[in-house]
């Protein structure tokens, strides 16, 4: 009798294991297919008379080096696809992936389901930098113009990161302190942002606000190398660390007893995340909720093993941002950041409601 039962359980386990694998593969496939679909949609359906077939034709011809007669519809479509649609879609993929994996890391590391890449105040620092450039025209570096905003934002984003690194020497950094410190830093920057915003004129205020909301419009090839390099390098490191992250999400004590130097590890993760997030938001503005929502969606389906959550949530984040971007594109004048917050805030609300009494648990 007993033997049989064990056999059954083993079979059941095996089956469940297969199911779990299948789920992961299916989810990843769905995400990747979705990405391909939306990249297609974003570069397609923009020019009347340029359908799916024609789009491939254009891309193929571009690769072969064939050129269309100047100013013809196909010539414009070709330019549009290569100069606007591709960088735009690629930026959406990179930004979505980077923010999602940062969110995964933050949530595991902070043992807090509500943490996201902006929790440490990076976003407000970036925002302050950008708004300095937009409103006052102050550049923190020698760079001016469109890139001046980007550089300013990046340098601004590093301020909270540095602050946390230095404070970590003095204060024992629990996850709660870190999040609080992030809140405090963002309050501080926000007060200065508010000051700059109310003392400027209406038009400048509007462009500053638009930057804050976050948009992928006007993304060009020039913006991509930094985003891509930082994101790829960063996510490879995160994936190498994912088993350690698993241990971290069990709680500080368990992590220590399993031999992780918690504080050093946390600090390392924070710096890594700060660099990744800063590289993204300095180009796109503060697009919210991806880092929060994407990892949760993935965990709902495949559970919370970071070795799988990290890569799959990258795909999911990319898909999410692409989809939001596609929606934004349909409305023509709505930045993608707004669409993200319209999608993200109800999800956040549901996360709160679903959460059981044990606040802090990740499923």
């Amino acid at each position, binding site marked *: 009798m007993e033997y049989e039962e064990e056999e059954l359980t083993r079979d059941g386990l095996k089956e469940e294991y297969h199911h779990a694998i299948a789920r992961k593969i299916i989810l990843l496939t769905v995400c990747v297919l979705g990405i391909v679909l939306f990249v297609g949609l974003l570069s397609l359906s923009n020019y009347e008379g340029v359908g799916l077939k024609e789009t491939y034709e254009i891309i193929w011809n571009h690769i072969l080096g064939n050129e269309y007669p100047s100013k013809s519809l196909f010539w414009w479509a070709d330019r549009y696809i290569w100069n606007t649609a591709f960088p735009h879609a690629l930026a959406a993929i990179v930004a979505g992936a980077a923010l999602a994996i940062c969110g995964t890391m933050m949530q595991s590391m902070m043992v807090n389901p509500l943490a996201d890449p902006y929790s440490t105040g990076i976003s407000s620092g970036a925002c302050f930098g950008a708004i300095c450039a937009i409103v006052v025209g102050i550049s923190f570096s020698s760079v001016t113009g469109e890139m001046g905003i980007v550089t300013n934002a990046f340098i601004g984003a590093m301020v909270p990161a540095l602050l946390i690194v230095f404070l970590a020497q003095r204060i024992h950094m629990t996850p709660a302190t870190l999040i609080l410190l992030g809140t405090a830093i963002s309050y501080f920057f926000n007060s200065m942002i508010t000051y700059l915003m109310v003392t400027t004129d209406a038009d400048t205020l509007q462009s500053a606000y638009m930057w804050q909301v976050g948009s992928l419009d006007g993304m060009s090839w020039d913006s991509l190398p930094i985003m891509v390099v930082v994101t790829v390098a960063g996510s490879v490191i995160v994936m190498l660390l994912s088993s350690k992250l698993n241990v971290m999400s069990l709680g500080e004590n368990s992590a220590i007893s399993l031999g992780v130097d918690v504080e050093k590890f946390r600090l390392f993760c924070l710096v890594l995340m700060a660099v990744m997030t800063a590289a993204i938001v300095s180009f796109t503005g503060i697009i919210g909720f991806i880092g929060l929502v994407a990892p949760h969606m993935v965990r709902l389906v495949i559970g919370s093993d970071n070795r799988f959550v990290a890569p799959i949530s990258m795909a999911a984040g990319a898909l999410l941002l692409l989809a939001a971007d596609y929606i934004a594109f349909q409305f023509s004048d709505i930045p993608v950041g707004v669409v993200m917050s319209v999608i993200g805030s109800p999800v956040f609300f549901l996360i*709160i409601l679903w959460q059981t009494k044990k606040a802090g648990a990740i499923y």
Partner: protein
Amino acid sequence: MIEETNEEFREEYRAMNRRKVLFILAFILLAAGAFFLTLGFGVYRIGISDAVGTFFDHLAGNPVDPSDDYYVWDVRVPRALGALLIGAGLSVAGAIMQNDFKNPLAEPYTMGISSGAFLGATLNIILGISIVPFISGTATTVVNSFICSLIPTAIIVLVAKYRRLTPTAMILTGIAVMFLFSSITQIMMVTAPSETMADAYEWRVGSLSSMQWEYIPVMLVVTLLITVILWFSSSKLNVMYAGDRAAQTFGENAENIRVSTLVLVSIMTAVLICFTGTIGFIGLVGPHVARIFVGSNNRYLIPASAAFGAAFVILADTVAKVSGPNGLPVGVICSMIGGPLFIWILVRQRKSAWM
């Protein structure tokens, strides 16, 4: 022997209480002094003594210079009174929230009231929509934001009715509701023309420049009434501060007290901010400073917060009036003082109850 020690303790206790009362009186004096001081500040040029003189001339019924009288009595006095009421009301609200949630960083806006109010105001400022029919003109923004600011609280009370919500869960629900409302507001903001968008943004920062005599009675009555009610229930509030379990042993249902004070505080906050916009940090700063002087006993904390908050806002508004090309919204000054103070509280606190 024992008798004597008792007597000594009692004496010391009385002395301590006397000291607390003295602090409260000092705060009140500070607020009153600031009230007269602020009458002398603004774009219109008039000395402090002249301004105070004009004020008393008007009270006595014989205004001298019509233009002095206009700017002092019709512009600055309601603005100063508004500052006092906002400061007192929001500080008391903050004190109650911190007490209810046993969280030093709770404030009147923690439940999402500000986002609701902002949504209501934006509906009128950007889209020109009035929620209540038949209302038009300058009252629309006020009515809109009042009504909308009560929605988040209503949602939380409703959720609390069907699910047991711990204080932390309540705060989180508040944040979630805030995100929901903000996302709707954001859609309006990004599609608005720049000047109405600037108006809306400034409303969110909060300013006392729109204070008028007509607003004062409503603000005064509501603030006074609710503060008095809260003050009379301070013993219940004190018990709650000791924790939900402790409250139970004293025969009080912590959750009921929490929900009912939450509703009272929300109404008071809504009434105040619908006239001024969502001025931040007062509800955080006021009670904190007051607590340093009088401790956590609500019997003293409530009046002390009220007095200190009033003095704080009126002084902040005085600073706001003289900074910037022709003044700044007071909300900017409050956040510039409040932001760093928040960090200080945090450093002092070290460990906290948040999350």
